């Protein structure tokens, strides 16, 4: 990594030398007393941006009190501003007792706050930094001439996609709602599922420029304090210009190891987050993305689907086993084919060997190259299918799978078995409920094919040993990635390869939380409690 660091620092130096024109707003700068000065400063700082609406009105009996209203068009709720701020200030208070008071009092701000503004959330503001933050996130600023303070009325309202069905993690049985881009919607979705006062939420802004809201959500008393502190510390460590998606945060807070495996879990389903919170994990919500991060993420959480818990225990156990088999095929399918056909034909039954050999008759590529080419073709198809306009997606899949596959076999460029192997592998790759894990496995497939092509099954076994070593070395927020397999925790095996019936899922996973272990209260738990 030495070389990498050097390269980064070199390019960094170059850009550092250029002078930055970006203005830095110091948090300490207080507001001016004069409204004109304030407005001038705001205009200057925001560069006269056209979506910033600045309105000066006069209120009071004689109309001598100058008031400035500032908001961002599109982010603030215009009707709310008209109904509850403008109308109240300019029309409703005329001639009332308040009107008189305003004239006599020096503390107009307090008066307005207490009597006039019929809006839920009002804050004081006295420095420019908060001012900009709030105005740019949709709040309405009310400045009063002669006061070095202003009011911020919460009028945030912008276009929201609404709660829709999850697109990446669909289930047959289970809730059909997914997170949207607005953080507040997302927190409400979770809060609706867990109505416990212990569900705590901490928000902070991350990103020097974007000032993105990032919230940590956990259930106090279930989540381990150690992990929560660790999450806080890691979030506070971030110093970056912008956060646009949860992927930014994921990369910045994950454990500092070089690994293809995701050590932070992401989901777009509120029910998954709720379930994880109940297991004692910590959720990180980021404004502007429908993906919520969950830490610590163990390997098994990427293989388990939320549906496992909605279906009958026996069925979901079988489905889980199926998923593990799928994972295995997805990782090793082509490499096993390459190893068996090029190094160990003695392992194939005679009839099968002859059949495969006859198909390979005339294929110009060695099996390794054939596998690599087919895998590559599949990856390209997959990527193209994702990127292309949805309307011609079907056309692509027809061309890709049917025409190319069929024609390649007919032309004798690839063998039919290879096509079967690659398709089987590709389909198996989709058994992972989590997209990030299936990408990892897909990526690891290639070195495995390489090992299989040089060392046969020996290469595959050695590769697997190395993979297991690597997995065992990983930690996610202090928790071993492979737990509860290694270190083996017998009580937690009830929800790993198999899912036990609900009455047996008595305790929360260890290592993640030390306290409040019992989930289900039934005769068994009580017996255990009494120490029988």
């Amino acid at each position, binding site marked *: *990594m*030495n070389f990498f660091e050097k390269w980064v620092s070199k390019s960094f130096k170059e850009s550092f030398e250029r002078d930055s024109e970006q203005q830095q707003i110091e948090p300490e700068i207080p507001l001016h007393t004069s409204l004109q000065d304030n407005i001038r400063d705001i205009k200057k700082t925001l560069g006269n941006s056209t979506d910033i609406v600045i309105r000066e009105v006069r209120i009071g009996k004689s109309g001598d009190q100058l008031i400035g209203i500032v908001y961002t068009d599109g982010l603030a709720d215009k009707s709310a501003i008209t109904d509850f701020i403008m109308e109240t200030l300019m029309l409703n208070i005329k001639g009332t007792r308040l009107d008189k008071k305003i004239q006599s009092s020096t503390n107009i701000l307090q008066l307005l706050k207490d009597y006039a503004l019929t809006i839920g959330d009002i804050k004081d503001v006295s420095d420019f930094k908060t001012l900009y933050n709030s105005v740019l996130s949709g709040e309405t600023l009310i400045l009063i001439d002669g006061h070095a303070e202003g009011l911020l009325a919460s009028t945030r309202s912008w276009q929201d996609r609404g709660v829709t069905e999850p697109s990446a993690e669909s289930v047959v049985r289970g809730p059909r709602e997914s997170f949207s881009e607005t953080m507040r919607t997302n927190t409400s979705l979770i809060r609706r599922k867990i109505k416990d006062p212990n569900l705590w939420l901490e928000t902070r802004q991350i990103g020097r420029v974007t000032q993105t809201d990032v919230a940590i959500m956990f259930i106090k008393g279930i989540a381990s304090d150690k992990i929560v502190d660790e999450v806080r510390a890691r979030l506070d460590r971030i110093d970056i210009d912008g956060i646009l998606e949860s992927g930014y945060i994921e990369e910045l807070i994950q454990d500092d*190891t*070089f690994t293809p495996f995701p050590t932070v879990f992401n989901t777009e389903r509120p029910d998954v987050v709720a379930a994880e919170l109940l297991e004692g994990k910590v959720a990180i919500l980021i404004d502007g993305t429908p993906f919520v991060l969950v830490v610590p993420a163990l390997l098994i959480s990427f293989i388990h689907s939320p549906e496992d818990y909605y279906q009958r225990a026996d069925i979901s156990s079988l489905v889980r086993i199926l998923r593990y088999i799928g994972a295995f095929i997805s990782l090793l399918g082509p490499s096993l084919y390459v190893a068996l*056909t*090029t*190094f160990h*034909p*003695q392992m194939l039954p*005679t009839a099968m*060997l*002859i*059949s*495969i*050999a*006859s*198909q*390979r*008759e*005339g*294929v110009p590529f*060695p*099996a*390794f190259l054939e596998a690599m080419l087919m895998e590559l073709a599949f990856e390209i198809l997959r990527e193209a299918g994702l990127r292309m306009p949805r309307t011609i997606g079907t056309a692509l899949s027809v061309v890709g799978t049917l025409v190319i596959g069929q024609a390649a076999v007919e032309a004798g460029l690839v063998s039919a078995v290879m096509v079967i192997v690659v398709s089987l592998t590709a389909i198996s790759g989709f058994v992972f409920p989590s997209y990030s894990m299936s990408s990892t496995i897909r990526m690891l497939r290639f*070195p495995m094919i*390489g*090992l299989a*092509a*040089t060392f*046969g099954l020996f290469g595959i076994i050695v590769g697997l040993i*190395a993979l297991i070593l690597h997995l065992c*070395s990983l930690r996610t927020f202090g928790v071993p990635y492979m737990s509860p397999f290694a270190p083996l925790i017998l009580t937690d095996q009830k929800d790993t390869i198999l899912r036990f019936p609900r009455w047996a899922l008595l305790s929360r996973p260890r290592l993640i939380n030390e306290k409040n272990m019992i989930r289900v209260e039934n005769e068994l738990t009580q017996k255990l409690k009494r120490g029988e």
Partner: protein
Amino acid sequence: MRRVMVISCLFIVIVPLISGCWSKRELNELAIVVAIGIDKVGEEYEVTVQVVDPSEVSASKSSGGRTPVVMYHAKGESMFEAIRKMTTVTPRKLYFAHIRMMILGEELAVQGIGQTLDFFTRDQELRADFYVAVADQSSAKEVLSILTPLEKIPANKMFNSLKSSSEFWAPTVPTRFDELLKDLESKGRNTVLTTIRIEGDPKQGTGKENAEKINNSVHLRYSDIAVFKNEKMVGLLNEEESKGYNYIRNKVKSTAGIIACPKGGIITTEVKDSKTKVKGKMAKGKPRIDVTIRSDTSIAEVDCDINLQKTETIAELDKIASEKLKGIIEKSLDTIQHKYKVDIFGFGEAIHRADPKAWYKLEKEWEEIFPELEVKLKVDVKTKGLGTVMNSLPKKQKE
């Protein structure tokens, strides 16, 4: 930790580079050998291999123009030399892991097979799970050159019919290569091998047309058992003697037996299950062998006048069958003990197991002792089933 990754990545790149792909062989670069024949011609070995042409055998695209198997042969002073010499004629490298049959020429069997087989144990590619048979009255090369109908690959035909005949018709002995080796190494037992014979004119069997006729003129048939003394073939057992041999060796799974009815005519019985126990014993300083055979049969075909619904009849039949079986076994014992004088039953091993100390004394002169060995036979045949009818139909019509 990152350094490890860099270094291991480097290795992973370098290792394949320096290594290339040594053991790699593409399937379409292999000539899959399914049968191998060994003959002795003068001082040299002549090795014949039967190689599959996959595209002719496969289900999907059979061009139909060529024979499904190709035969190559070469001569050499050693097996390995002959096989390597064959590369001068074969288009691809021969691949031996899928051999189903090994045919030994009669000439070779008579001269001794021990030295010949070393190559097959030493080479890692070969597996010891193929059957070995001796060509009767012909060379191995001729046997391998016969094309068979129904089963496109002659080696498969030989393999399967040997397997099924041993399961349903007792006189063949399917000897796997590893069993053969074990027998050759064993001090207390000599080996036997099934023989295979070409029926019909061998020259006519080589063409594709042999497989194209309904009543094809040339067949491969398993016939008798070849008896080996140490590693040399000394003679043949006929069908009935072979059956007797299999009974003693506890290798009968199922077979057919014909017994005479008390009142004339015959009854055919199907042996369903047969268990043989061979026990060695030292009686008064002399070795003795007790052979106990328990055989369960059922009636398969009745061709005489008999009332099967009486228990006495069944008892009588059992007795007749036991006597018959005893006769068969005694005959084959007699042939082996007195004609060939070779212990192919493992009686020596039985003595060894029963009384190791005595065996050490007997071991050296076992060859002399064996023909004089006292063998006590106890045969017990039990009829268990009658099939789907009680008495046979013709009998009813007569009444």
